[in-house]
């Protein structure tokens, strides 16, 4: 129930629209009511005086009501669509903004998958709640209230019965919320699971085929889809029983009350002229109720996604700026110090244990070690996607956490193992790191990043569209674009997580040259997966099981005959197989 109240919170962003839509709904209802009253009068006239002039004036008024309503309904339609867009847009942008506040550390891979479906399908499903259901509640209240007081003058008893039936129509669906909530909630989970599984299978079809497993996957899918059909039809049954009950209640509202009024009129308890008024007005009372019920049903799906939405919104960002965070102080070639840093992603197993080392001003430092030794974690901490549980990382002598996050990140460039390219041209993708960069600067950066050659060969050169729905670039090409981005950004600290992805020998060489270019005149940290690339580093830090095992230059470490020596030996051996 709490969720519903919280959903209402978003309404404050579309107050004007909600008010407008409700007003429109009311005026539309008013034309219905006026029409009903006029029609009742016409019926009475036919039974009574049959005065032609009066009849035609009423009829003209009916036609007028119809025309006005038709016009209003046109406005209402476009209003509904725009309002829907506005509220969905608002919710989406609030959620995404919160995502940026949470940052990449807390938005891990699993989360982003969930978030994608939440932001796209989940929010879509909320539309009916806001756009149809909420305004309809007002319409029902006001139409019911008006009809009740108007009909009171004709027959109090029937009016009371009418209003009671109406109240039931509203209360019953609310009473069944728990049952429906449970089933529909499950439905949504099942549905998204099945869809994900289906897409998973289609995506992996080639792999399945090489493993001769596509048929067995097919039969798994069949089993799942069949059981999903059983569950969905069961849910349909539940939600339909609910709807059918509502239909009976609304029918009672519109028919039985008329019959009661008719019988009372026949017995002379009330005036006969009251009967047509009941006949036409109760239909108008039932109409908004009927719609309310329909909207309520279409809202279910959305409401079940709301929980996921708020769960995300309730996640507190872990990385936040201190109140007096500094907006300056990182020098051109700063020194970076890890002081007794201990870190764990989960809180249970420490990935880094009491790690201390210094990256001196303007140096090129390499981090090496076996896979799983904590190399990539160092990167995550350096760019402050996470904070260490113990110890501190100091830049230019000051704890990283004392700088404003956006300032800190503006002074750093990071080149990741796998670079994400955005839908847009190559030029736009490079420019992202400094929006005011000129075309010449972009070409120059691409040249330094050894990317200009392959870019020139693309169908449209720098204007080739890449990213989703665009041209797919290889891992090595993407990384060089990322390096070009870093060159344009021209920040004092450069962090590079060397790609492990397969790049052919030629691109590997080119990337190597690009990295050399980038690490000039900066403090640079390179996480190396291939030892050959870091021989000339000023300092090599060797990690083992989350601790610093040894450090020094290539020659020093070789002489030590420790882990580094072993790693190098392994590499040499490969060549001699």
């Amino acid at each position, binding site marked *: 129930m709490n969720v519903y109240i919280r959903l209402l919170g978003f309404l404050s962003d579309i107050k004007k629209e909600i008010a407008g839509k409700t007003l429109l709904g009311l005026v539309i209802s008013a034309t219905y009511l006026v029409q009903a009253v006029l*029609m009742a009068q016409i019926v009475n006239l036919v039974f009574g005086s049959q005065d032609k002039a009066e009849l035609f004036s009423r009829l003209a008024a009916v036609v007028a009501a119809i025309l006005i309503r038709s016009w209003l309904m046109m406005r209402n339609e*476009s209003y509904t669509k725009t309002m829907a867009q506005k509220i969905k847009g608002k919710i989406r942008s609030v959620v995404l903004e919160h995502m940026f506040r949470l940052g990449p550390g807390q*938005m891990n891979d699993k989360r982003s998958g969930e978030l994608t479906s939440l932001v796209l399908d989940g929010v879509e499903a909320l539309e009916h709640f806001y756009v149809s259901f909420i305004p309809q509640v007002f319409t029902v209240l006001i139409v019911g209230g008006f009809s009740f007081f108007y009909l009171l003058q004709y027959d109090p008893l029937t009016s009371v019965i009418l209003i009671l039936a109406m109240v039931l129509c509203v209360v019953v669906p609310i009473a069944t919320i728990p049952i429906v909530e449970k089933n529909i909630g499950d439905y949504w989970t099942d549905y998204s699971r099945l869809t994900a599984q289906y897409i998973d299978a*289609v995506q992996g079809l080639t792999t399945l085929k*090489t493993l001769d497993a596509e048929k067995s996957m097919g039969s798994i899918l069949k089993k799942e889809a069949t059981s999903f059909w059983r569950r*969905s039809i069961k849910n349909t049954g539940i939600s339909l029983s609910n709807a059918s009950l509502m239909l009976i209640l609304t029918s009672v509202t519109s*028919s039985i009350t008329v019959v009661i009024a008719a019988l009372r009129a026949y017995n002379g308890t009330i005036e006969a002229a009251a009967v047509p008024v009941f006949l036409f007005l109760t239909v108008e009372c039932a109409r908004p109720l009927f719609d309310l019920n329909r909207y309520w049903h279409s809202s279910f799906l959305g409401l079940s996604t709301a929980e996921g939405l708020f769960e995300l919104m309730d996640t507190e960002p872990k990385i936040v700026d201190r109140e007096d965070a500094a907006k300056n102080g990182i020098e051109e070639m700063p020194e970076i110090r890890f002081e007794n840093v201990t870190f764990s992603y989960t809180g249970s197993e420490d990935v880094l244990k009491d790690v201390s080392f210094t990256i001196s001003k303007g140096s090129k430092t390499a981090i090496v070690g076996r896979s799983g030794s904590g190399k990539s974690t160092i990167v995550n901490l350096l760019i402050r996607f996470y904070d260490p549980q113990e110890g501190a990382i100091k830049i230019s002598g000051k704890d990283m956490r004392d700088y404003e996050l956006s300032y800190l990140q503006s002074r750093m460039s990071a080149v990741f193992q796998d670079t994400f390219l955005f839908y847009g041209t190559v030029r736009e993708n490079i420019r992202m790191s400094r929006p005011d960069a000129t075309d010449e600067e972009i070409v120059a950066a691409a040249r330094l990043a050894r990317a200009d050659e392959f870019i020139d060969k693309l169908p449209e050169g720098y204007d080739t569209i890449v990213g989703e729905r665009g041209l797919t670039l290889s891992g090595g090409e993407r990384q060089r674009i990322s390096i070009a981005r870093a060159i344009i950004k021209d920040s004092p600290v450069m962090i590079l997580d060397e790609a492990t992805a397969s790049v*052919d020998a030629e691109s590997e060489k080119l990337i190597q040259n690009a990295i050399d270019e980038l690490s000039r005149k900066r403090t640079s940290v390179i996480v190396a997966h291939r030892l*050959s690339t870091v021989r000339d580093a000023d300092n090599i830090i060797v990690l083992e099981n989350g601790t610093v095992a040894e450090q020094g230059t290539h020659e020093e470490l070789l002489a030590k005959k420790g882990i580094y020596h072993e790693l190098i030996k392994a590499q040499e051996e490969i060549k001699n197989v």
Partner: protein
Amino acid sequence: MSDRKKNIVNLSRTIRPYSGEMSAAMFSAFLKQGSVIGAAAITSYIAGIALGKGDTGNIRLLIVLLAAFILMRALGHFGEMYFAHDVAFRVIRNFRLDIYNKLAEIAPAYTLRKQTGQIGQAFVADVEILEIFLAHTFSSFLIAIILTVLIMIALLFVNPILSLLVIAAAVLLMAVPYKMGKKAEDRGREVRESLAESNVIMVESIQGIRELVMLGQSSRRMKDINSAMDDLYKEQYMYGLLKGKQSMATQVICGLFTAAVMVCAAWLVSAGQMDKVMYPVAVMLSTVILGPVLELTTVAQELGVVFAASNRIRALLDEEPVIKDEGRLDADMEPMSVRFENVSFAYEPGGEEVLRDVSFDIEAGETVVLVGHSGAGKSTCANLILRYWDPDEGRILFGGTDIREYSMEALRHMVSAASQETYLFHTSVEENIRLGRPDSTDSEIEEAAGKANADEFIKKLPQGYDTVTGERGFRLSGGQKQRVAIARTLLRDAPIVILDESVSNLDAENELYMQHILAEQLKDKTVVMIAHRLSTILSADRIIVLEDGRPVDIGTHEELNSRCETYRNLIKNQMND
């Protein structure tokens, strides 16, 4: 036959197996619509009696009948929706499975140049759209026609003029979507396009959050998101306006019909051709008898989208596989030679030849590596060995037998492949490995993982072998994925093994280990590798150098290094490491 008709016929055909349920749905719908009209008639008739002080002798019967109609309406609604949804859910399930099976049949030839994820997503969406037609349109279409005709016939007995009025109104109503539908459809398409546009921006923001944060683009991105929302808002407004015009036209027709009936019936009463008591009945019915037609026009508006979706699905299901599985031979699991005999191949008929007159022999149990620049045809060779395509000219022989003589199933058993892009499914690591051979025991899986040097890291995962991987699960690194893929391949135990760049992501130590292990585990196998890295190249018995779709030389490293210019160029960057 027009596209529209063809679509209806095709869709109807998919429903045929469920004609029982469909008839039940239609019968229920008929019951429902009939009850609505019946209940309205009785209510207004009772009102008429009260007004006209008519005969109340059968009032009890009327009330019982009214109650029956109310119940029938609820039951009819339940039945219609229940059965129609049942059919819809089942047909949708069938569609999904058909699409999967079709894709499995024609992959990877069909999926080669498309993002398989997008294919999956597109078809999920398309199939869903069909639900509208199956669950809602199909029955309303027939009911609208049957009921309207019945009403007209009934009215002929009351008065031919009323009957004419109904025809006129029904025809006019049907004309609305026909007349305005095209424009609305076009607008609708534009809305969907800008929706897709804004969805891409949102998905990118989620997936690329790391880059956005590091490039200081968060707030700029929020602006982009909001402006995409604004664009969509404008599109929706235009679309809403058009839809609004449609509903305005509908309203005007229905309203004027009621007014016309009121005039006409009043005239009939005054002319003595109609009983006064029937007047409220005529007026009341005029507001409900267009209901079925109205329902039809509402769903008809969506038909354009439905047909577009069904066209896309149909086109896929009609797709012919590029290879014909006509071979009869069973799998031969003995060590096996592989021979290319004058093989030429182009991916598109008449397109550029990727392989030109390629001939080479690989002896049983030999390890051969294919090298060459990207685009030289290395992966195409692998694709042809896997028989994803057939050569345009020449043939491929396993152990002296043309591979087309084996059944596809036999070929799958004889060849196993670990490719560059290993796909991991959203299931446990154990199940991912088991895909290689579904009947393998847990200990066999662990053994295979052990041989692939994957056992150690798998045991360190949060849930060990039960850790769920894949896009939405725990992300493994490139090297870890490759080791899982190799474990799968070892489990399959096929005589021919293809390793397409499948060790490129391993670090030096793992690669070294792998080379020792592969030399032992795969020593009886015929292994075809594709590699860039010199260390991998050196581990092969022979090297085939491809250039522009032709083998330029075949031999050992020493031989090629001394005589082959292309080969020297390929490896020169790595020689001085």
